[in-house]
């Protein structure tokens, strides 16, 4: 018998989505840096901002899960 809220499942699903998103950002940034190492610092900044946006979605899900719990 499983009890409790299913909010945790939602948080987990959001984590999958964010994982895919951050993975894609990281891989593209690496490709970009490999092609053009001199632009590394600019790419890194843009990468961090994009990653923060993606990550925020997962964290919103965590907050919702915490509230729903």
């Amino acid at each position, binding site marked *: 018998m499983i009890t409790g809220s299913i909010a945790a499942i939602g948080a987990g699903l959001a984590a999958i989505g964010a994982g895919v998103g951050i993975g894609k950002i990281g891989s593209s940034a690496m490709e970009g840096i490999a092609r053009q190492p001199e632009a590394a610092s600019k790419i890194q*900044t843009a990468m*961090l*901002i994009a990653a*923060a946006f993606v*990550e*925020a979605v997962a*964290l*919103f899900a*965590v*907050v919702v899960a*915490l509230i729903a*719990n």
Partner: protein
Amino acid sequence: MDCSHVFDFKVNRLTVVFTLFLALFFVTPLLYAQEDTSKAALAAHAKPEDEKKFNLGKFALHHIADSHSWHVIGDYHIGLPVILYTQSGFVSFNSNEFHGDDEAKLVIEKDGQRFVKMHEKIYYASAAANEEGEYVEVDANHHAKNARPLDFSVTKNACTLFISVIVLLAVFLNVANGYKKRKGKSPKGLQSWMEPIILFVRDDIARPNLGHKYERFMPYLLTVFFFIWFNNMLGLVPFLPGGANLTGNIAVTAVLATATLILVVTNGNKYYWKHIFTPDVPWWLYIVLVPVEIIGIFTKPIALAIRLFANITAGHILVLSLIGLIFVFNSLFVSVVSVPFALFIGAIELLVAFIQAFIFTMLSALFIGMAIEEHH
């Protein structure tokens, strides 16, 4: 006390910094663990029937929440002032008068009024205790239903806020004086430590996003950046003067985001407002577009607040959960896995502390930049 001689020699200074750094790393899990033991022991005393059941979720949430007293170690708490605005004016007393009671079992009488504390909230006490010995009326979910006075207490978070303000003022007044004294000369001491970071904020955050008008917004961006960064780091220190979770408090991050919102709204030029109220689309699309754009003004700072809050909170919960695994499995051997892993997360959190301060400042600059951008 004058401790400046400690910092007289470069070697000494390095040693002190390095020792503090090491201490931070080694003591973090130990202290968390120690706290856990006492808490777990307390729980075991109170409810012997479910001795094995350690509620990790509740424990973690309790530790990241604000509180009226500052837990130092074991049973020692630092009392903080409780300031209440009641029907008959202000009432204040030391929070240690509650003697660690958080279940509304101890009534405090002040100026003919009676108060109890339950789950870090202060209520007017009921005339008589209920069957569990609590001086409040509770509903089905065990939440108190009593009326509450307005609470202006200097809580743990407020106290940390004061500490961080004092430290930030000390550091930056020192740096600012350095620039006045050594105008045009190379920086020295604390100044040379801060200068690269200040330049980083200017060259990598303000200039690319704000263009040539960046200078007007530098004070705000620098303040926000260093405030968030410093408080993130302070939140990672498990003992005094750290231990409070200031940037992981939604109220604090909401205030910071509101400051950004005010800057955006007050500095927005006519192109910015035109883009919101009369965008270049067929008029019948306004029915959809204008409300969306108006909501967009507010979702940006809300996302800003929640991002910082959730990131810091998630980090703290992660560390507490990993250490808490020892008590969930009730075995010492779990610590072989969980303590190194908590240490690893602690190191990641140091990085996150910087990245989140950077992201918050960056996005603030971006939003302000969007509002002041000239039309091409």
